[in-house]
């Protein structure tokens, strides 16, 4: 298990937790992120019931989780938020930001409507301790209701499943170390999971409008520096929605 600070300046910080070697091997590895600002916290894609205990125990070493006031779910998948009811049982006042179209689906995880703040299709802002985080639409990448989250202060762009990689077991780095090699772990995932080239191009244009120093996916390694543009160019040229033909 790795927990590291990605950004830490004054009262603002980003932490990532990933590479859980103790997880059952059939469970996909996930990255969980915690943003803190002025003593308030928000969890990004906090993970499934399977890793709730580990995520909560690890983050609790670095931050008082009683100060986590919200959870952001990029989309509805079980590896993203099936742990929600456990987080809410621990803090019944927790606010959960989810794509609007998934509200009635997410309530199947045992979440009550009073905790949910639906995110409109056009995105918007989430305010954490007086600091605005920008919610950027990423629909159809892969989910039909899907968002990324950009932090202008840390210049970190949380991309959810975009940029995700199914890494080999012996890959322990939190960051991409060899981009060309890394594409081998990303290609099938993006061809298979991402259905729309048009949506892809819109999202890439949105990322390029912003000043980004790190691009953080929910699975696999984090992109920083020139690897961000490497990824955007690679993704731009990839014909997504085509992965199914290889398994027919």
């Amino acid at each position: 298990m790795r927990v590291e600070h990605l950004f830490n300046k004054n009262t603002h910080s980003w932490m990532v937790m990933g590479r859980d070697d103790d997880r059952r091997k059939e469970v996909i590895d996930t990255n969980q992120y915690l943003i803190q600002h002025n003593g308030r916290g928000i969890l990004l894609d906090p993970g499934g019931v399977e890793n709730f205990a580990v995520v909560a125990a690890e983050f609790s070493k670095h931050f008082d989780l009683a100060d986590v006031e919200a959870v952001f779910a990029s989309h509805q998948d079980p590896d993203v938020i099936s742990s929600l009811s456990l987080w809410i049982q621990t803090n019944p006042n927790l606010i959960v930001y989810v794509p609007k179209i998934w509200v009635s689906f997410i309530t199947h995880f045992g979440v009550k409507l009073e905790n949910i703040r639906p995110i409109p299709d056009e995105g918007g802002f989430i305010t954490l301790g007086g600091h605005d985080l920008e919610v950027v639409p990423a629909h159809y990448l892969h989910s039909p209701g899907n968002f990324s989250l950009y932090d202008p202060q840390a210049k970190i762009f949380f991309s959810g499943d975009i940029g995700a990689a199914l890494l080999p077991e012996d890959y322990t780095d939190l960051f991409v170390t060899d981009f060309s090699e890394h594409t081998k772990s990303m290609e099938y995932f993006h061809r298979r999971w991402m259905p729309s080239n048009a949506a892809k191009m819109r999202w890439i244009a949105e990322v390029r409008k912003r000043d980004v120093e790190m691009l953080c996916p929910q699975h696999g390694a984090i992109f920083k520096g020139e690897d961000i543009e490497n990824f955007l160019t690679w993704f731009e040229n990839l014909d997504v929605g085509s992965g199914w033909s290889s398994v027919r």
Partner: protein
Amino acid sequence: MSENIYTRKMGEEYDIVFRQCVSLNTELHKLVPLAKQMHLLSSNAVSSAARAGTEGDAFRVLTQDIQLLGDEVSHCISDTQKVINEIVTLASHLARSFSSYIIYLDLLNHLDEKTMKTSPKYFESGQKNVVDDIRDNNNKLSRCLGTLSNLLSPVSTLVKKGEYLAVCSSVEAASAGEHGVSFEAVATMLRELVGQLGTQSTRQSSLLRDLSDAMEKQQQNQRNLMYAR
């Protein structure tokens, strides 16, 4: 006994309770077509009594009794359906809450108080909420089982009443000669239906007893687990 053994035993008991609820649900659903057949029988009795003409006065009295019996059986079946649906939902909530309880135990085992910035009380409150849910659902489930038992207990009386009505119908049909032929068919159908009702009600009562026993064991294990902590 160690906490782990109680936890495992409780998990097994929840499994048993849930499976027994589902079996009881399946058995109780078999009563639904029986209610429809009772309704059909009432219609047959009415038309048979009408066919007997002036000779059918006794049939008309019996028909009224058969209709009343049919209504009572239908009400009983419809009430049990509502309760069993609630029982299955509660059993499934209990199983889910218990999974959460296990996850919290796992979490508390992962915590290292020396290095923590979060107070363990924060997580203990989550676990307490789960335990409260379990207690609440357990109590509700016990109450529902009591209600179901009360709903099913008059069935044996209804069966006896039906058997008696079937005998009376046969006697009246025989004494009416050829006018009573179609009412004899009604008597036969009534005998078959109450026979089925009797058989099913015996099976359901036995399942309900097993379920109540399993609930008691599970509640005992739950108490043991709480004391073990």
